[in-house]
């Protein structure tokens, strides 16, 4: 099953600036794995070293947060879309000590 994956702005640097890419799989986990194999730099952005999704990156199948639908085991159907939605805060990151935007 090939479905559309929406790539958020902060991650487009790792998908050759594409806004949408296609990825294959029977469930969300397989789709994400396929996506990361096609764009290896995404792995470090999406996953922590244990292979779990990083907690400030949410994944939605259509409009549902996969945490509530079975996480990576959430089954995927034709015409589904996957959205990767990281937390954003705009302005200056806390890491920049000057605090000025």
């Amino acid at each position, binding site marked *: 099953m090939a479905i559309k994956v929406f790539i*958020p*702005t*902060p991650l487009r*640097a*790792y998908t050759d600036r594409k*806004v949408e890419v296609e990825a294959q799989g029977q469930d969300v986990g397989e789709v994400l794995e396929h996506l990361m194999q096609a764009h290896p*730099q995404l792995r470090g952005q999406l996953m922590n070293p244990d292979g779990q999704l*990083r*907690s*400030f990156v*949410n994944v*939605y199948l259509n*409009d*549902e*947060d996969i945490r*509530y639908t079975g996480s990576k085991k959430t089954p995927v159907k034709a015409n589904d879309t996957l*959205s990767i*939605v*990281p*937390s*954003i*805060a*705009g*302005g*200056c*990151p*806390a*890491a*920049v*000590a*000057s*605090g*000025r*935007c």
Partner: protein
Amino acid sequence: MATAVEPAVLNKEEILRYSRHLIIPEVGMEGQQKLKQARVLTIGAGGLGAPVGLYLAAAGVGTIGIVDFDVVDFSNLQRQVIHATADVGRSKLESARESITAINSNVKVVGYNTRLDSSNALEIFRGYDLVIDGTDNFPTRYLVNDACVLSKIPNVYASIYRFEGQASVLGLPDGPCYRCWYPEPPPPGLVPSCAEGGVLGVLPGIMGMIQATEAVKLIIGIGEPLKNRVLLVDALNMKFRELKLRKNPHCPVCGDHPTVTALIDYQEFCGLGRGGVAPAAEAASAEAASEERVEVTARELKQELDAGKDVFILDVREPFEFAIGRIANSVLIPLGELPRRMEELDRERTIVAHCKMGGRSAKAVEMLRAAGFPHVRNLTGGILAWSDQVDPSVPKY
């Protein structure tokens, strides 16, 4: 929505002023009176706070509180339309107060010229009907969220990055809070700032207007709020999408058995030290650690170059930034390309990496040290510091 007080009376001037509201059945005199009685607190008079302040003033919100300790910077003017050129260098709070009063002198502006933190947030929030989160960093986002939940005040949330925005109304009874949505913040330095990532100036205008609209709706009690859902705005393609948000019954702040019942240290929560600075390049990989210092100031670098030291200056910014201005003899390898291009660099040479402000180059230094480059340092403060301390002919941006 407002606390139980005598209905606010509108005088003749106000009736004329708000006539276009009064003749809409969904608003009417009753709705306008609710607006007059309402007390809305905006956190930040910046990109998001600007349209919120202006339009809530126009709408006749009776009391607008503003929390902002910053001064207007020239680069703010590209989007923070509540401030004008003549306000550069002035307190954002005072500039915002003046703009709001000029639109509508019926509005009472309450200013808080302070940084919002765990010691003052609950006190400041007390008595307000709504909080509008227009802040620009993760620790404050989590602070505002927790303070809203603890105070039982809705949090009209929006955030932006480049061309994308998110908006939702959090902290409603039976609704999710920010922690239900994102239980943990990203590690510091991972998400670039507006200064490093840029932002399309009109975007906070769109998102701030969505916040102002939600505020008006909540005050009057009409329409459907952005409850249990988040609006994702892609301004570049002008696409609006919605995702479902759920209240997490196990949420540590708003769940059935909360464990966070007081405000915490949010700098620490977001992985930052006391000074609000990430334990950045000092935490570089132990195998690649050398005895050399990891940071160098612009002045120190200039002294080394003048003394004839062989230093390879690595610029890790993007090509369009390189086009704005560069340090002489620097070589550009954008940070995103560094992993696959680092073999172009000479391991034996002394390398100083820089970006615009020092954040991206700190990551580059970590990356190179972990890959076994022993002589790599970070230019503290980036090319902006170089322009300040060494060569003012290099444009700041």
